[in-house]
């Protein structure tokens, strides 16, 4: 008697599980095909921006699809009048461009958010943003824009399209074409392929890093960054865009940072680095870390991961990476 009941309960549970899994799979499939459509639009927008032509084959390659799958996708794009064909090239319609730009804007804003506020590592934000960029309303996107303080570019240095759908175009050069011994600021590092992006950032090279090419050989560039020299394969150098460093950036590089100030020393704040944006910048400002303020290193925590600084009469603990975002000038005792 109780055995039959037990069996029935088990069967019911198993059945419910199956239904749940089936529903999950179906939802996931619908989400995937929608995301695929939008990704195609985004790719077409960026390609148009770079003035590249897109054929069904290049689209298949970019989205990692088989040729048949790509053609099916193009059919769907056409049936929703998002793209048209011109000879063998895919051309976005106005509607398609609008949707692609909106998506690109959402993607880059989310990347900015993940980097500035959720503190995600640079090499992960692209993948997460890929998942989150769909299904945002216009209102949500513009709120996010405002929340982040209307950023101009994403953390890789790519420009963020404006709400009107314009992409600001700043002059930029490939690092491999840059002259020797001429200070340059990195403005953009291509986030795909992911492993070359990782190899670059591992060397400490980030957007807004200041670099100088010391020597160029057949296959490698010798680069001066801060006080280290880096050997960078030329293949990697072609995913880095730079422009001429302005004087302010060069001068900034020469300042000591708060992290480097020895214990029990006094210093004057010069400014907070440009890289420190969003909430963490606002918090520092709110606590009185403004240009001209005096700051004293007072306590070091066990493990020295953080130190406590006397600023404007109060004792504030900051982690090391944060202190390294504050440029200072030591005041001799």
């Amino acid at each position, binding site marked *: 008697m109780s055995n039959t009941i037990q069996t029935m309960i088990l069967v019911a549970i198993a059945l419910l599980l199956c239904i749940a899994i089936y529903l999950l799979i179906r939802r996931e499939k619908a989400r995937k095909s929608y995301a695929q459509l939008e990704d195609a639009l985004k790719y077409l927008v960026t390609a148009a921006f770079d003035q590249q032509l897109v054929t069904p084959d290049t689209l298949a390659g970019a989205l990692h699809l088989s040729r048949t799958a790509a053609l099916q996708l193009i059919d769907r794009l056409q049936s929703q009048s998002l793209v048209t064909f011109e000879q063998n090239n895919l051309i976005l319609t106005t509607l398609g461009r609008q949707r692609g730009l909106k998506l690109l804007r959402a993607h880059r*804003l989310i990347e900015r958010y993940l980097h500035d*506020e959720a503190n995600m590592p640079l090499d992960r934000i692209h993948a997460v943003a890929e998942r989150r960029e769909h*299904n945002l309303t216009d209102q*949500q996107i513009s709120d996010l824009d405002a929340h982040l303080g209307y950023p101009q570019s994403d953390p890789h240095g790519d420009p963020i399209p404006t709400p009107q759908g314009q992409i600001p175009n700043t002059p930029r050069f490939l690092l491999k074409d840059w002259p020797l011994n001429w200070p340059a600021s990195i403005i953009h590092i291509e986030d795909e392929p992911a492993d070359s992006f990782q190899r670059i950032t591992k060397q400490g090279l980030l957007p807004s890093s200041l670099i100088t090419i010391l020597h160029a050989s057949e296959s490698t560039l010798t680069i001066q960054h801060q006080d280290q020299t880096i050997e960078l394969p030329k293949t990697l150098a072609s995913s880095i865009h730079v422009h001429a460093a302005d004087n302010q950036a060069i001068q900034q590089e020469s300042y000591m940072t708060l992290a480097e100030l020895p214990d029990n020393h006094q210093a004057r704040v010069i400014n907070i680095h440009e890289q420190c944006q969003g909430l963490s910048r606002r918090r520092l400002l*709110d606590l009185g870390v403004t240009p001209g303020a005096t700051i004293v290193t007072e306590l070091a925590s066990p493990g020295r991961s953080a130190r406590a600084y006397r600023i404007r*009469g*109060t004792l504030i603990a900051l982690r090391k990476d944060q202190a390294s975002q504050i440029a200072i000038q030591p005041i001799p005792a």
Partner: protein
Amino acid sequence: MSCSGNCNCSHNNYLTGGNTVGLSIGGHSRTIALAGNPNTGKSTVFNALTGLRQHTGNWPGKTVTRAEGHYNFNNFSYKLIDLPGTYSLLSASVDEEIARDYILFGQPDCTVVVVDATALQRNLNLAFQVMEITPKVVLCVNLIDEAARKGFDIDFQALEDKLGIPVVPTAARRKQNLDLLQEAIEAVCTGKLKPKPNIPAPPPDLKEAIDQTLPLIESIAPGLPSARWVAYRLIEGDTRIRRALETGELQQLAGIKLPSSPKPTPPSPTPDAAQNPTDKKQSA
């Protein structure tokens, strides 16, 4: 610690029920907001004034929700709102939004900014921000006993002259000068004393932008008292203020007594609460 912020409130209602009922029937009650940095003894001031026992603790972020209490002074009933302790009203974190929205939209009859006498410089930053929003401000310089112990000597008269608002030195823990604070609050509420806040002029670089914005604001919200502050916020791109202008909420403020519950952002786009760009909590 005994309970989350929510039970605190029910606590308070229960505790206050007795001593205010008799008096608040005839007179209308005045609303006082209590703002201040964390660790300034704000909750102690609140407790000392209201006789409540809102828990105090010496660490930043202690008060996460708004607490309310009452006290009577010269036959008037005063409702005291203890806002979350914040360093600023600009960073748009949840507690700063609660505090900012209450001071702006709640239109208290007087806002008391509690500052720590031993860290006046840092604390004045918040005082200036409140003074930008409303002129009806009293500065309560608390912890003067600690300051004296640590060898600080403060010229309160000079401070009052420089700020243009009433300054009351207190030691809330010893219940010192609380009567003076109550008098100053009364004077500001009744209009017997009209503070003329002396706020830092906008930096020269920004003067042009502000000068262009002010007449624009005047054209859609004539006579707005905190126009310059609204200009600051709009130039910074504060969507909450922008929407308040769009919906007319800011313009109609004079007629509104209670803060309409702020809606920071629409619901989050994904079920994933973590790392969600637009995930901000509704104020409690």
